[in-house]
């Protein structure tokens, strides 16, 4: 079966940040450039345990293709990734491992809880299940659904891109952020 090569000409380019431009130079604030770069090249680290992981596979697959949003390369190693995607139930047996993976990630790091189980424990209000991953690690975006549709996961990632884009460069060093990490006993 032959497949003629088709080039996609409908490529969307991100908007240039506000700034001063003249002949041969462009001046803007550092925040905006860094935010722009970070938001559009988030490297995902899938922490897929159960059903939501299968929907996440569909999101990465050809039909929905998360790569369109600059998240083409899956890291699979915490040390290279920016965005931890927790998809699926986290049992109490798994919680220390999840925490370890989070600790191994370098700053700046963001976390998305995909699905009801990762967000709140979902339908599994039972003794072995952690009732939401925010008990062990801080979470930036929650995606509802059991499991969420791939569109939902993509929406969650776009929301995170907004957060990343607008994050102040000083946030990670602020007292408030340190306090947040300390509340999770993370130094």
């Amino acid at each position: 079966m032959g497949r003629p090569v088709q080039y996609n000409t409908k490529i969307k380019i991100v908007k240039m940040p506000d700034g001063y431009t003249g002949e041969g130079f462009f001046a803007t604030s550092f925040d905006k450039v860094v935010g722009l770069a970070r938001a559009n090249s988030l490297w995902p680290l899938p922490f897929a345990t159960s059903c939501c992981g299968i929907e996440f596979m569909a999101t990465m697959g050809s039909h929905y293709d998360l790569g369109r949003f600059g998240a083409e390369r899956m890291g699979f190693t915490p040390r290279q990734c920016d965005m931890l995607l927790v998809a699926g139930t986290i049992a109490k047996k798994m919680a220390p491992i999840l925490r370890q993976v989070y600790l191994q990630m370098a700053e700046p790091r963001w976390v998305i809880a995909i699905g009801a189980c990762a967000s709140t424990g979902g339908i599994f209000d039972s003794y072995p299940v952690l009732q939401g991953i925010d008990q062990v690690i801080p979470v930036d975006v929650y995606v509802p659904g059991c499991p969420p549709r791939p569109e939902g996961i993509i929406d969650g990632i776009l929301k995170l891109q907004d957060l990343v884009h607008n994050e102040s460069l000083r946030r990670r060093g602020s007292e408030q952020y340190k306090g947040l990490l300390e509340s999770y006993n993370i130094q």
Partner: protein
Amino acid sequence: MTNEFIKQKLTDKFGEQITNWEEPYGMLTFTVPAAQNLKVMQHLYDEETLRFRFLTDLTAVHFPDRKGEELSVVYHLHNLVDNARIRMKIFVPIETPDVFTASQLFSAANWMERETYDFFGVNFVGHPNLIRILNVDEMDYFPMRKEYPMEDPTRIDKDDEMFGR
């Protein structure tokens, strides 16, 4: 192979020891004394006309009201050649839940027995590695017993004065 035939064969060999013959929804069910479970299973396995050589399922049930026989271990055996299924039960008291392991006969029983131990605390005598399998190692109770709650005890957001959990 009919249920009557299996029943006849087993009664010939074990006589009155096997009790509670039933046929709920067509599956032959009987109760064996706890000490005899391995002998009956071995006989079902070896006997050329029976050939129950496939362990479909092994689990336990907790009946808190039956004094002296609170825990029941249920085996589902399958004869794949003649396509016959039987269900074998044994009852043990909860204080001394000792049952002989079937893991020498069926490799499949290894994890199923570990799971049963994990959930109900049935002590499978002779099991090569009887430790918890699904729950965390630190757990100090057997959660599938009826007296233990299902809910996560650490959860506070669902407490409600009016509706409880």
